[in-house]
């Protein structure tokens, strides 16, 4: 890695089911303007913008960043688009960070977004394609068998999925930007919610959100320009594997564990549970928390659900390794921006900007995103100190 890279501006929109007051560009700019303000910068200061967006079918537009170029202040400048499925919000940030560490640019903005309300998202994400039997009934139907296999292997009790959902929704009450603010949330409420894709209940699934999240990334020279101390990037990594392969382990995918291993090596992490102060991890269905606890090496295989059960990942229970203090994907999910939110929330924590969801004295945090059939991974580590 060449130059160091710092996050000096972070902005996101209030995630919600329908932003009828703004169009796509207005929503994106709202997050960007907040990030620029935080960075004490204006659009004119930017060398480039890297934009992330999941399938364009969601808004019915083809490469919408082209028409958005002017509103993104990029006329005559470089505007780059990333699309790596659900991990895109994270990959976008990583691509942006390479523009800095590779010495190409000094001040850039990365932004991930989706305006889910602008089309029928189930049609957009799971169209019926000839030769491919339509038996899965959407993302929940795809991931439910993997979750059932996790439960079989680990012997985890049923209440774990419910507990994660309650924990993340309670965390969301601390986060003014979270989509779902469910004051009444409790185990009973989640347990009684409809069983959509058994073993996944409605209460254990993520929402569809309109939302955008942006960050200003700069080289070391500009690191002190922001309104708060910078978050320093200590490592970034991406891994991909095929969707359908005999012997592929969808429960504990190797692309995820390989990605984490390489990432941890960059930052000298040998004991993630101890060394990280918190983690923002892509958990779109509640059972993915114990699965990813194991995949990311926070515990041994088969033990993830025990961490969840003992409250280790809960702020409200004083856990030693809080996961998804923002409320996570279970509380906000603008697909193309969801990974960016994970990365940004990790950075907010080490900058001490996380308000009611702040983990006291957080110095090192993990941001994580995944996509496709648990096959695309993007992760970063940010810290309050220089790497």
């Amino acid at each position, binding site marked *: 890695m060449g130059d160091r890279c710092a996050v000096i501006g972070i902005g996101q929109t209030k995630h919600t089911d329908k932003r009828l007051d703004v169009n796509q560009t207005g929503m994106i700019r709202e997050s960007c303007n907040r990030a620029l303000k935080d960075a004490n910068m204006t659009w004119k200061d930017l060398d480039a913008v890297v934009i992330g967006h999941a399938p364009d079918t969601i808004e019915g537009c083809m490469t919408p960043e082209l028409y958005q170029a002017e509103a993104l202040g990029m006329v005559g400048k470089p505007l780059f688009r990333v699309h790596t499925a659900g991990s895109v919000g994270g990959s976008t940030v990583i691509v942006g960070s390479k523009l800095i560490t590779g010495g190409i640019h000094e001040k850039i903005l990365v932004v991930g977004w989706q305006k889910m309300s602008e089309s029928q998202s189930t049609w957009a994400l799971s169209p019926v394609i000839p030769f491919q039997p339509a038996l899965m009934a*959407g993302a929940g139907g795809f991931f439910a068998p993997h979750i*059932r*296999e996790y439960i*079989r292997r680990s012997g985890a009790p049923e209440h774990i999925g419910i507990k994660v959902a309650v924990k993340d929704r309670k965390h969301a009450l601390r986060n003014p930007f979270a989509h779902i603010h469910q004051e009444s949330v409790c185990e009973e409420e989640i347990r009684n919610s*409809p069983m*959509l894709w058994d073993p996944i209940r409605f209460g254990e699934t993520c929402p569809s959100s309109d939302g955008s999240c942006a960050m200003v990334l700069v080289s070391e020279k500009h690191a002190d320009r922001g309104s708060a101390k910078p978050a320093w990037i200590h490592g970034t990594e991406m891994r991909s594997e095929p969707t359908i*392969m*005999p012997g592929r382990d969808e429960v504990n995918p190797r692309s995820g564990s390989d990605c984490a291993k390489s990432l941890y090596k960059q930052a000298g992490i040998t004991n993630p549970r101890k060394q990280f102060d918190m983690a923002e991890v892509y958990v779109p269905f509640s059972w993915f928390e114990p699965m990813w606890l194991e995949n990311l090496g926070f515990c041994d295989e088969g033990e993830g659900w025990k961490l969840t059960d003992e409250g280790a990942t809960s702020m409200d229970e004083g856990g030693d390794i809080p996961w998804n203090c923002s409320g996570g994907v279970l509380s906000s999910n603008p697909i193309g921006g969801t990974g960016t939110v994970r990365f940004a929330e990790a950075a907010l924590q080490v900058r001490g900007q996380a308000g009611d969801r702040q983990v006291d004295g957080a110095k090192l945090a993990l941001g994580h995103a995944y996509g496709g059939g648990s096959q695309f991974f993007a992760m970063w580590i940010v810290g309050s100190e220089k790497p």
Partner: protein
Amino acid sequence: MSETKPVKYVNTPICVDFDYTPGKATSNFLRSIKKGQLIGSVCPDTGKVYCPPRSYSVETASPMTEIVELADTGMVYTFCIVNIKFYDQAQEVPYVSAYILLDGADLPIMHLIQECEVEDIRPGMRVKAVWRDESEWTESMENIKYFKPTGEPDAPVGEIMENIRSKSHA
């Protein structure tokens, strides 16, 4: 102008048509299933059998030329009980969609399980295909209506899947 309400929504429907190409390996599979035969392709590097077949090994990118015929029996690897009506879906809810590992294959296919109580379905359960009447067979996986339990003792699912994993490269 103060009376003007903001435009909050415009509806602009899109219709685009596409012709899909299944490709060589899938065409072969569809032709075969029209005759009531399931087939798979063999990865020359790992010996793993793909069903449906591929032209290239997803794992090693080597061309897969060896084709094998597969039984219409197998075991349930894992499954999901779908209680939600999906758009455009003919299937009545609830239904069970399962990953079924056919005997002789290393890659589970997804299909329905019927002719048993939903709560009796479990990983490792032995199942057999229930075909439509031969006169209705087309180039479609729907020639198999669903899979049903055979009543045989359960297969050791963990061991079988672990064995497939151990054949992986590197």
